[in-house]
């Protein structure tokens, strides 16, 4: 569970110190005109190749301090200046911890795309209606008639 929480924090950090580091580089360097398709291919190939060598070329000193204001913005959270001040060092600690992890030599280890979990837990395609749907709808503050009512939105991001 702790790992999951960390993952969430780290992934929203502008540094992308976890697996995302490479992706951002690729994104930045690929010309905008390149099709997303080509783009994906390059990335997926690189991910496979790069995975085992994580430890060798990164260390904690190379990581940038977190931009807490931007982080808060991407997470749609409002923070006071005092809170920003307070959060910075805490997030920094987490990032530094990943810096330590990245020092571990994993050259001889087969890259894992996911943590070890019990496989084969797929679900049958058999429908089941969730009983307490009213409970869900009642908890939506802006439910009107049969729809959720939200401010008018036309464009994404």
């Amino acid at each position: 569970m702790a790992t999951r929480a960390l993952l969430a924090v780290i992934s929203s950090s502008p540094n992308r110190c976890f697996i995302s580091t490479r992706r951002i580089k690729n994104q930045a360097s690929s010309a905008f005109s390149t099709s997303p398709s080509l783009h994906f291919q390059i990335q997926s190939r690189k991910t496979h190749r790069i995975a085992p060598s994580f430890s060798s070329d990164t260390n904690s000193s190379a990581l940038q301090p977190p931009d807490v204001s931007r982080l808060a913005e991407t997470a749609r959270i409002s923070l006071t200046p005092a809170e920003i001040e307070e959060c910075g060092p805490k997030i920094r600690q987490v990032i530094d911890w990943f810096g330590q992890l990245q020092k571990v030599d994993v050259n001889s280890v087969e890259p894992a795309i996911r943590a070890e979990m019990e496989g084969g837990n797929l679900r049958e395609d058999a429908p089941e209606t969730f009983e307490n749907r009213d409970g869900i709808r009642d908890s939506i503050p802006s439910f009107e008639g049969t729809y959720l009512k939200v401010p008018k939105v036309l464009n994404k991001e």
Partner: protein
Amino acid sequence: MSTTLFRTIQPNQFTLLGTALFRRRRRSNFSVRCCGTQTTTTHEAKQPSQSRIAPKNHGSNKLDEILRDYEAVIGIETHVQLSTFTKAFCSCPNNYGSHPNTSICPVCMGLPGALPVLNSKVVEFGVRLGLALNCDLSLKSKFDRKQYFYPDLPKGYQISQFDIPIASGGYVDVDIPLEFGGGHRRFGITRVHMEEDAGKLLHSDTGDYSQVDLNRAGVPLLEIVSEPDMRSGIEAAEYASEMQRIVRYLGVSNGNMQEGSLRCDVNISIRPIGQAEFGTKVEIKNLNAFSAISRAIDFEISRQALLYNQGQADQIVSETRLWEEGAQKSVTMRKKEGLADYRYFPEPDLPEVILTQDYVDSIRSSLPELPEAKRRRYEAMGLGMQDVLFLANDVSVAEFFDAVIGKGAEVKLAANWIMSDIAAYLKNEDLSINDVKLTPQELAELIAAIKDGTISGKIGKQILFELLAKGGTVQGMIKAKDLVQITDPAEIEKMVLKVVSENPKQLEQYRNGRTKLEGYFAGQVMKMSKGKANPGLLNKILLEKLNAKD
């Protein structure tokens, strides 16, 4: 039945720009329409209902010239909504058109503590489509979270596949219809990945609010990303309709564009011919018909080419444009500033997706004959490309046709009946071939009965329409209605003599040179025989009698 051949690309209402473009692209070879020489039936069904000839327009030559210097580069992202019984990660029913916000549960609503469990059908459909598109499959793939905030996305992220999709590196073959220049093309498939759909937003025209229906949130999708291999609106539309055929052949989706079960986003840039780098890419959304794909792309090509030509290439910016079907033009929806930052990371709530080779092999061996294989098979049977494309377009029609020829019917005759009278009937009655009472067995019987002369082609048509509407058998109908063709020369001669003797005036006119009146006599004899006289014999005997000197 949204067949390629019924699909009409309508040049009307198009802007000046587009009109010119269409003229250029439509180097039609109309002669191909007159296929089939020994047909007993007509081919109206195949004729496009709209004129393909664009109106004359004087500004067009210049645009044609400009367009000659540029090449378009087009890639397509296709979202296919899967026809599973349940959503991708929870057991909520996946029903289009349910009462709003009734197919929801803690998982698809993103409530705290709810955990997703992958639907096995989604994996199966992903593998089926991946194999059908000649892709390499990842025996191990994973899910990732794509994060953005939007009211149709309850969890605040979409579960998708980012760097390791289930299938990648494939291709698809299409045949361009003859009226668009014909030819065979192969387009690369970059990847196919599994993901979930978002809810549906309805925007009120008056109020300052939007409404959300979350029944669709969590419905499984396969996203197919093409290589940027297409060069024209027609190629893109053909690619998209091949995707529709493939998902329908495979049974993974109903492929219905109006309901949003098949959605295409087009990426397009143009570049001077000879230039290796791509130009600035523009994305077009809201394309819910194949004709819209074709026209939106051709509109965009000419828009960009004109900007280039006027030295305003800097005005081609990276943006998403929305196709307006009514106005036949695209408008800016939003400009893109840098790449969207979705902060992908591996979905911690789902294990990796592991496929065994045995599983993949078993699905491979259960794949149906795919559209491309069918087209090649029909071609090898000697059918023309027009017939091939029509028959292979709709999987139900193709199966019906296969069943008819399986009963021994002659290939070309079977194709003609299906493509003309049956297709016209289906269109008029708004039915699918599965809805009619006519069985492949009886169509084969009907064709045989005409061929061996038991009934005439004309009677055959009458029987056909009865069979389509009411069912029954050809033999039963021939017996019950006494429809057997009259092939006895003596009997026909009797009727001819009777008609000739009853029309002395016309006979005289005929013998004075109005030989056209032969048709009148033939008609009278046919009427007397209730359509049963053998037309060949009738004409032969009639001419003898008319020209006899007595």
